[in-house]
């Protein structure tokens, strides 16, 4: 499935990804509690996702109870999604590793965008999200982001759910 332009994503597209994905490999996960990746990992774990941290500098240790692996090809399980906390250029080869790994989704964090890599992933049948945070999108779609004064853009007369 391809997304034209990748400047905006339909809520239905993001919802489907966040519903189907159960396991996530997080490239660039930090062991430092006040880094954005740590926040995202903690939030996703609390929402029932299994997140495996990938970080060569922290390999051998654990983050939030999960053993850190050095690279995608050393992941102990096949993950549904690769979430990239690296810069846009570094995201290129990581996307190729995600394709080789057999991930179904590649997600690049806020500020991270690599259109060429996204095109390769989509050609290989993966779904791609760029320049977004899965924590923020999840909280937005379930409505809890509004608890902190941030409107979700979702208008509904039904009870909110993912």
């Amino acid at each position: 499935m391809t997304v034209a332009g990748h400047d905006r994503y339909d809520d239905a597209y993001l919802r489907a990804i966040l519903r189907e994905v159960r396991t996530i490999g997080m490239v660039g996960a930090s062991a430092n509690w006040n880094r954005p990746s740590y926040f995202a990992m903690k939030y996703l774990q609390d929402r029932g996702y299994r997140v495996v941290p990938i970080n060569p500098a922290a390999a051998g240790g654990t983050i939030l109870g999960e053993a850190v692996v050095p690279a995608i090809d050393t992941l102990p399980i096949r993950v549904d999604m690769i979430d990239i906390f690296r810069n846009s250029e570094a995201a290129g080869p990581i996307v190729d590793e995600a394709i080789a790994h057999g991930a179904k989704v590649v997600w690049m964090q806020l500020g991270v965008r690599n259109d060429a890599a996204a095109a390769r992933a989509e050609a290989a049948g993966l779904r791609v999200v760029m320049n977004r945070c899965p924590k923020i999108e999840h909280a937005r779609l379930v409505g809890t982001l509004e608890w902190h004064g941030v409107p979700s853009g979702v208008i509904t007369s039904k009870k909110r759910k993912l």
Partner: protein
Amino acid sequence: MTSSYGFETLSIHAGAAPDPATGARALPIYQTTAYVFDDADHAAALFNLQTVGFIYSRLTNPTTAALEARLAALEGGRGCTVTSSGHAAQVMALFPLMSPGMEVVAATRLYGGSIQQMKNTYPKFGWAAKFVDGNQVENFKRAVTDKTRAFFIESLCNPGGVVMDIEAIARVAESAGVPLIVDNTLATPWLCKPIGYGATLVVHSTTKFLSGTGTSMGGAIVDSGKFDWSRGAKFPSLAGPEPAYHGLNFNETFGDMAFTFHSHAVGLRDLGPSQAPFNAWITMLGMETLGLRMERHCANAARIAAFLEKHPAVAWVNYAGLPSSKYHALAKRYMPKGAGSVFTFGVRGGYETGVKVVDNVELFSHLANLGDAKSLIIHPASTTHRQLADDAQVAAGAGPDVLRLSIGIETVEDLIADLDQALTKAAA
């Protein structure tokens, strides 16, 4: 956000989906101070801001949060923080931007209470306010120093009749690398959305038109989410390690939500001017009819301003909706649906006549508020501005002959008849 719904739909639905726990269709009033934690780990994650949720109502509350989401949606902002009053919102807007020695450049045409706050109270925080005539945009440029951290204006200025060139002032702010704060109280987002013209922060006294019936104090800060707080190293509270949060960098962690997260997690936490859930609930109710009410407020005001302009007891009328106003073009550009309902006029005969008019009205209420469904009148020289010297009163637009009106949504013929009889008696 991305929602393509119209203003009236958002003013009824934004922030208020059915209650997830009970299905209650109306917004519940969560009259609680605190919220139970699932376990110690959940508590830690909440205190570290790693998960969304509630800790204590000084920081966040589900009812006030609904108002925040609605107001942000209506203003086209990224996030919103509501406060106990409009004045608290002004302090809360500047708090993350300022530190001792820093300056805010403000237009002289502001609500008198705001001038008072900036001139006499900010210095106690070590903040300085520099006032400039906002009609000449270059004045803002001239006032900028390396200590400037924000510009502050009102879109439609209290006591009415004056409109600022928001887009031009926003451009000066942009080139100075500081955010433009716009008080949008008198216009409301139904008439004007300052973020669309380059404002970074929009502040409100929700006490006024947003709640709409003169019942509930409240304020708000809406953040556009568009200002890069890391620019120029001027805003260390937002884009440096924040000591009030163990060195957390809000800009890095929360991106375009940094301001809104900071204003809850640090501003409301440490300064404490949170809005009561009941007041937020009343304000939410008011906002459901904001468009309808503003339409009538503006239509009534336009009729009354035209009536007064021809009245023999009236010397002048300062309403930006009148073709005779020098702000008419700016009003047409920034608030094409109407020039609001707060304005001033002058009576022939000065102070004595002014006092007699307020004594003789029967429908208009003589009080110090605006933006009520009820029509209001005040004679500033004998009330809000009576401590000022004569020349200072005139400079503030509160000379002895000035009356300020806030036109309500009653039957317009009744309002005209009331003013007519009061003016006639006063002039006799």
